[in-house]
């Protein structure tokens, strides 16, 4: 019973958070960012129904997102033109149906095989759809895409969904609904068999289940939820374009799921938030932000293969015993983290300075010797003098060795916390 209350409590808390977020971050840019995050959360979680839950690595999940976006744009134009009584909040249902339809259509082919064969087929289908988007102009609208006007639909309670804040609440409601549904699916017989197929598809056959059919349902349902995400994306920017079905979009959702961590349900949510924020904010600081994004991805793969959620969950073992001792235990550990974090930041600053200066000299020598580091005017660096180069190098190397020096502090703090937690757990 208390478990039931706790699990409902999480969703109620999430709903309240979604309601008040626009009051905490009222700026127009923040609302826009939160809309994109909400869409990405649905998309990344739908992707994780494949990757994390069922063990299917897809390189073409944007196909279902993008095709649903086009179906949505056409549906909205058709609804508006014919004056059909369908309000905007129900439009994502059409996206869901489109995603499900294409999921079933392409899934019936691609889910026959798992593993590498599935990954290759997904890549092939993605290329197929993307190249047809340049050919089938009436459906995909060529280079301009298909634009639409979300305010032209039937009004509900006087909301015309012109202002971004109204779209935010539309996205937030759909996001919460989809997250709850996708979580619930993991708790069903089908959801458990997805995990079994991920772990050992062969054994699944010998307990009465057809792993191909499990993969097929997972794929179709992932298509449905990706369809909702794509539909909301089309509503959000009132446009659907070929890039929605493209490889970059498929790559972005893979990155989001992986960076957040595919082993835990919350992982892709964290990943969606971080990846969306980074892709918006990093470009304020550097032209070559995609490079840093790639470095972050590689770092996660190498050093934290379970992603951000995996790193967080590693701390769950310290969360035992009296509440006061839990907090002091974690505070001690985080203190050690900060000690190690300072040299890491110095090392990063040095490395980034060197990368930016190389980029400036190689690509932008026409602008002269002066570079604005991190695009800040107050951080002007003369790339033609030796000092910034030496400084960057020194910070990078010095930071690295200082980090090596502080690492034992973290290791021993970790050990102490573990011993302490085990003692209070008994």
């Amino acid at each position: 019973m208390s478990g039931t209350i706790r699990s409902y409590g999480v969703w109620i808390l999430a709903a309240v958070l979604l309601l008040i977020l626009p009051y905490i971050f009222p700026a127009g840019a923040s609302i826009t960012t939160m809309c994109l995050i909400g869409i990405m959360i649905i998309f990344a979680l739908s992707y994780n129904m494949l990757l994390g839950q069922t063990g299917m690595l897809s390189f073409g999940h944007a196909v279902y997102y993008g095709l649903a976006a086009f179906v949505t744009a056409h549906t909205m134009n058709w609804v508006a033109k014919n004056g059909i009584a369908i309000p905007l909040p129900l439009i994502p249902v059409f996206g869901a149906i489109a995603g499900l339809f294409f999921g079933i259509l392409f899934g019936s082919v691609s889910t026959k095989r798992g593993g590498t064969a599935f990954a290759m087929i997904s890549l092939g289908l993605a290329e197929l759809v993307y190249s047809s988007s340049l050919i089938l102009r009436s459906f995909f609208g060529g280079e301009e895409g298909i634009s639409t006007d979300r305010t032209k639909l039937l009004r509900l309670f006087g909301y015309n969904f012109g202002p971004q804040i109204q779209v935010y609440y539309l996205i937030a409601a759909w996001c919460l609904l989809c997250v709850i549904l996708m979580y619930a699916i993991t708790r069903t017989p089908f959801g458990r068999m997805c995990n079994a197929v991920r772990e050992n598809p062969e054994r699944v056959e010998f307990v009465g289940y057809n792993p191909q059919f499990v993969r097929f349902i997972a794929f179709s349902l992932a298509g449905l939820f990706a369809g909702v995400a794509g539909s909301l994306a089309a509503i959000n920017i009132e446009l659907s374009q070929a890039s929605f079905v493209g490889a970059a979009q498929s790559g972005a959702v893979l990155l989001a799921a992986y960076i957040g961590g595919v082993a835990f349900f919350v992982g892709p949510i964290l990943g969606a938030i971080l990846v969306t924020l980074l892709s918006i904010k990093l470009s304020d600081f550097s032209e070559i932000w995609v490079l840093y994004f790639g470095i972050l991805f590689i770092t996660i793969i190498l050093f934290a293969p379970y992603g951000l959620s995996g790193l967080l969950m590693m701390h769950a073992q310290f969360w035992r015993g009296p509440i006061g001792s839990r907090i002091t235990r974690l505070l001690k550990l985080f203190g050690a983290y900060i000690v190690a974090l300072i040299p890491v930041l110095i090392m990063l600053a040095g490395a980034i300075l060197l990368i930016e200066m190389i980029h400036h000299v190689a690509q932008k020598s026409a602008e002269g010797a002066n570079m604005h580091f991190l695009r800040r005017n107050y951080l002007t660096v003369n790339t033609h003098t030796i000092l910034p180069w030496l400084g960057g190098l020194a910070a990078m190397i010095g930071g690295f060795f200082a980090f090596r020096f502080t690492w034992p502090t973290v290791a021993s703090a970790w050990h102490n916390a573990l011993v302490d937690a085990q003692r209070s757990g008994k």
Partner: protein
Amino acid sequence: MNPAVELKNIEKRFGKTEIIRGVSLDVRAGERHAVIGPNGAGKSTLFNLVSGRLVPSAGSILLRGENITGLRPFEINRRGLSRSFQVTNIFPRLSVWENVRCAVLWSKGYKYSFWRNVDKLEDVRARTQEILDQINMADRAEIPAGVLTYAEQRALEIGITIAGGADIILLDEPTAGMSRSETERAVALIRKVSEGRTLIIIEHDMGVVFDLADRISVLVYGQIIATDEPPKIKANQKVQEAYLGAAGHD
């Protein structure tokens, strides 16, 4: 009454290599039937053919009189035949509880349902608990199967095999690699779980075989040279020459 499993002139070739060379065998309903033979005789291949992992090159396989030749493993499993594997074949990152529950779900009729909360299925929960009690792993329920000891994983392998309630059980070397005491526990477990069912077991440990089996079939180079009760197998001249003589009595 139809035999539980009936093999008619089964052959299996991989390219030009003949592994099974015309095997015919009746396994009676309710008996414990051991298949023995030297390494490479084709015992595991025979299991793979019966359970649908491989398709025979010739011949047919009948399950209680019904032809199951060419059916997929899950189709055969749904008809009441379940098998274990020689190399432990479990779901390593799922808990022991989840491992067993996955094997229970189909038999309780839940199929691919994605609208029911799996934790609230009382019949599934009860059956899973029953199996865990039978294999003495109730206290290990929450542990990921991958971190169990070898003997525990072998017990879990048996638990997964019997969880679906199949009445024909195939066990492929269930005691391989176990210590003496572990083997004794495993045999007791096998005796318990095969009560009232048909058991076909591949086993190298002759102590286990002669202790457990009602009848024994001896497979040598892809052919069954004798099928009989344990004392008669022991006395059989051909068996002694081909197998027991070569391996020595143990």
